[in-house]
């Protein structure tokens, strides 16, 4: 089962780096680099939900935007499966980029600014559809109504303005818009973090239903580990632009390896049965700035299990135990 899944890779990110220059001084010279995404390798498998979790500022949105070709990567490859043919999307011509955009869509973090305030709902959908080959206006309208129905919104809303909707409704509209051109992969960048907790579950369940119905692949980003675990098949834990652990979602809270994951887990109110065992591992200190990352392990300045080697050598991402469980920590580095 795992192997058959593995063959169906849809989006394969290899050693991706997205760095931003830090400009300063009177002449706005480059005085540093923000390594927002630093050497990230991820395989997204067709049909799965790949969760990405990490604290604020660890580069989740940058990774999402780079995958959506909204940000230029500094280095690395991104292989996308165009009907069996793998192409590096960082090197596509304009036509293929367009093809890519018809296959991959994104739902953004902020539902309040993702709809144009001066456009009616129908207008926000209309141009994407037109650009993507729906020539007939009646067909477009039909398609918009269908998409809205998919997120449980009625067609009465077609001519409303965004300010007439609540955050939850707006996010559903954004989801519907991403769906309207029939993509196969949707990158969801913290789709519910701006919403009321009471609304969050409703939207998450809706997204799950839609995924099942349309056979979608999700890359699901959140800073809340419980949300990611609920949504995902596999979870990628990021810290300061790097992947520190990749695990089956169901296995992560049972067997977390990386001290950072443990700390994240202990901060999450997980409905575990064996209450007596759970103890909080406090995360002390702030996330260091991605401009001057500690040398060696990026987590070393906050890690309760730090060893001497940790500040000197950066731990590589390696499989530990099962093949699908990878971790970047010296506690698990295999002796050579």
């Amino acid at each position, binding site marked *: 089962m795992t192997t058959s899944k593995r063959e169906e890779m849809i989006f394969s990110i290899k050693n991706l780096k997205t760095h931003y220059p830090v400009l300063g001084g009177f002449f706005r010279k480059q005085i540093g680099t923000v390594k927002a995404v630093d050497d990230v390798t991820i395989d997204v498998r067709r049909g799965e939900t790949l969760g990405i979790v990490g604290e604020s500022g660890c580069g989740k949105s940058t990774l999402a935007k780079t995958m959506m070709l909204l940000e230029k990567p500094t280095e690395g490859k991104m292989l996308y499966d165009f009907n069996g043919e793998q192409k590096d999307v960082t090197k596509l011509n304009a036509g293929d980029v367009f093809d890519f955009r018809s296959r991959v869509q994104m739902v953004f973090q902020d539902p309040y*600014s993702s*709809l144009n305030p001066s456009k009616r709902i129908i207008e926000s959908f209309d141009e994407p559809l037109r650009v993507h080959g729906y020539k*007939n206006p009646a067909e477009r*309208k039909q398609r918009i109504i269908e998409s809205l129905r998919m997120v449980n919104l009625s067609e009465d809303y077609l001519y409303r303005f965004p300010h007439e909707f609540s955050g939850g409704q707006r996010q559903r509209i954004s989801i519907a818009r991403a769906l309207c051109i029939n993509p196969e992969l949707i990158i969801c960048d913290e789709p519910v973090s701006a919403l009321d907790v009471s609304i969050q579950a409703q939207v998450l369940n809706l997204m799950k239903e839609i995924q099942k119905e349309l056979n979608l692949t999700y890359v699901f980003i959140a800073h809340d580990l419980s949300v990611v675990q609920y949504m995902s098949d596999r979870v990628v834990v990021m810290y300061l632009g790097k992947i520190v652990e990749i695990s089956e979602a169901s296995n992560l809270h049972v067997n977390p390896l990386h001290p950072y994951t443990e700390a994240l887990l202990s901060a999450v109110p997980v409905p575990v049965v064996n209450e007596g065992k759970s103890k909080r591992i406090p995360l002390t200190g702030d996330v260091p700035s991605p401009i001057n990352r500690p040398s060696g392990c990026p987590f070393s300045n906050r890690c309760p299990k730090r060893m001497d080697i940790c500040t000197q050598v950066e731990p590589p991402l390696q499989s530990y135990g099962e093949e699908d469980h990878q971790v970047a920590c010296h506690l698990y580095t295999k002796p050579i």
Partner: protein
Amino acid sequence: MTMTTSAIEVKAKKTSLLKIRMKKMRSNKLATIGLLVCIGMTLLSVFAPFITSYDPAQMNLSNITQAPSAEHIFGTDKLGRDVFAQVLYGGRVSIYVGVLSALGGTIIGVLAGAIAGYFGGKIDSILLRFSEIFMTFPQLILVLVLVSLLGQGVNNLIIVFVITGWMTTFRLVRNEFLTVREETYVSVCRSFGIPTSSIIFKHMLPNTMSPIIVAFTVNVAGFILAEAGLSFLGLGVPVTTPTWGNIMNAAQSIDVVTNYWWLWLAPGIAISLFVLAINFLGDGLRDILDPKQ
């Protein structure tokens, strides 16, 4: 067929938005008065031949510097020309210069500002430096240099005003675009592969329209005043063409100012009234067009 119905539906809803704005407009008294005065004065100028039978260029040396009377309601000037006719016909040129210069400046400012703000980086710095050069150079000297280079004339004056007057709109639009660029819906458009020109002009520009319109009205007023000032100094439109500024040109001597008050008061009031009205209109539009209300 359904296609036309849906198009009509959108249109029907669009007009309802227009209706809301019209209603807001009517409830804003100053803006309404401003609009009516602007339209009224423009119509009077355009239809001048139907309003006065005098030819503004027709001299009558036996009838010079007549004080206002039933026959010449604004009196006559030193060459016996009817001042009322001059003010009416002068309005044509003055308003034409003001509106066209502002329009030209707005178009250049919007284009350059949108490009600078959307793309940022090198192109932005180049355009910004360029505008700074224009802004720091003494405006009046620049105008004088250009006028002497191009020669006097209505259209040349418009060109001069456009060249020297696009920067405020440019900076405004650039700043607006720098902000709007960060809005998520711009990223949404990009992820759908919508063409950049469409993102800039169809998706972003409408959200920056109200300050642009307000700036436009301010510019119209500014250019009308500038035309009057330059013409008063004899550097604007050739004296043979009547403009509000050229009529005032006659009032350069103390003699005229003290003894023939109607020569400068009539065009002066015309300028002030128009400029005031258009400023009221601009202020009102600022509130009316605010999408957040």
